[in-house]
């Protein structure tokens, strides 16, 4: 059971950035403040972990009318703030949830404190409907989502206790990654992934179902869907790529993966498959057009790790973009044996 929710402030509990708002601090997010009071009514504590001066905490207590169980405002890592809060209140990491709009802060906490339930603000309302957060009734969707959180936690706890390499651990979990041509039944989920993925998304813009449908019909495009499962549970469709194929070059128009699949070898498997499939078709080069943003750093690390390199940024529009390329004639990344690919 979650006993305490730890809140980020800027662009999370507050509708704006405290230090950038001059004399008038940003208002409290109405939607999230409602959830905060709901949860407090169920006996759940609240705390603040914010990269701000202490005044931000004082202001938020006044603005929400809620007395927080602990307030850590400072410039350290969020995981350190959470450690301090759990120590102060006397809770363990598996009894707290952490809400932050910044994907990298969430990644840092998920990485260092695997027991913490890490949520984006838009996921909090959904999570608040779970028994895990003291909700009484449970819909089928809420039950399924709750199970997913529990599976994730069980996997992380086992990972922490496991001695071998990451690859050994993925094998130990019975990880199965399946890459296959997407079908019409996948369209709603493909659209949803294009909206909801940020850390692993090469374009950062939503793609309508109709656009995916057109690419499924196109002879010059491949749309590959990636599914993930292991003995803890079935995560379903977690990623995809869209490739414009020509004999000379494969142009990857979109690469995306859900952060649900983070740390489970999926993005590396997808990139390895693209490289190997392109070579099997006799294509000399693969080019991935990728937005340069602080949000998709994990994807850019995966690209360079798979041997992709870029030259100068493209000079087009306000969005920073670069093309990452690699030839198919040198040593290609390995495709682990738990990955199933199209014949």
């Amino acid at each position, binding site marked *: 059971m979650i006993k305490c929710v730890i809140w980020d402030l800027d662009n999370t509990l507050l509708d704006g950035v405290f230090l950038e708002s001059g004399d008038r601090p940003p208002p409290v997010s109405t939607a999230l403040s409602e959830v905060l009071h709901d949860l407090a009514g169920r006996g759940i504590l609240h705390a603040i972990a914010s990269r701000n001066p202490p005044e931000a905490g004082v202001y938020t207590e006044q603005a929400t009318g809620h007395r927080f169980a602990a307030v850590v405002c400072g410039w350290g890592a969020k995981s350190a703030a959470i450690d301090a809060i759990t120590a102060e209140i006397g809770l363990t990491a598996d009894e707290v949830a952490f809400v932050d709009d910044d994907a990298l802060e969430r*990644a840092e906490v998920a*990485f*260092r404190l695997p027991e913490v339930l890490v949520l984006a603000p838009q996921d909090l309302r959904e999570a608040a409907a779970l028994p895990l957060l003291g909700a009484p009734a449970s819909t089928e969707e809420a039950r399924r989502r709750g199970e997913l959180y529990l599976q994730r936690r069980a996997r992380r706890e086992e990972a922490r206790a496991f001695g071998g390499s990451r690859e050994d651990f993925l094998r130990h979990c019975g990880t199965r990654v399946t890459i296959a041509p997407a079908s019409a039944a996948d369209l709603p989920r493909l659209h949803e992934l294009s909206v909801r993925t940020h850390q692993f998304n090469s374009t950062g813009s939503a793609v309508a179902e109709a656009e995916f449908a057109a690419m499924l019909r196109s002879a010059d495009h491949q749309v590959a869907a990636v599914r993930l499962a292991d003995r803890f549970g079935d995560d379903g469709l977690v990623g995809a790529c869209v490739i414009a194929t020509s004999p000379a070059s494969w142009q990857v128009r979109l690469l995306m993966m859900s952060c649900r699949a983070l740390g489970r070898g999926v993005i*590396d498997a997808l990139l390895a498959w693209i490289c190997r499939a392109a070579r099997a078709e006799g294509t000399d080069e693969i080019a991935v057009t990728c937005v340069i943003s602080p949000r998709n750093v*994990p994807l850019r*690390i995966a690209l*360079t*790790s798979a041997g992709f390199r*870029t030259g100068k940024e493209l000079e087009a529009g306000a969005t920073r973009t670069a093309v990452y390329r690699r030839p198919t004639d040198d040593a290609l990344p390995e495709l682990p044996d738990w990955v199933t690919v199209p014949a």
Partner: protein
Amino acid sequence: MTRGSADLTGEIRLLLAEITGDRAAIEAPLGTPLLRDGIGLDSLGGTVLLTEIKRRYRIDIADEDLNLDSLASIGALASYVQARMAAPRSPQ
């Protein structure tokens, strides 16, 4: 205040050991790659590293070094941070 490159390399080794949970990074040769088979950082571990470098040294590697060549090895990362601390970029 200046900082010796040995201190900096030591700090980076400790940080890597902390992120990977494996003390091997403290003794590994300077040429050891950070990703994949070397220190074994995956994209998430690499992101945590870059976030921590930005927080500690105010150097945004992901923004400046698009090919992330500074992640090629322990030594490459230490040299990059050292060089950037010696010659800060002027704000644009």
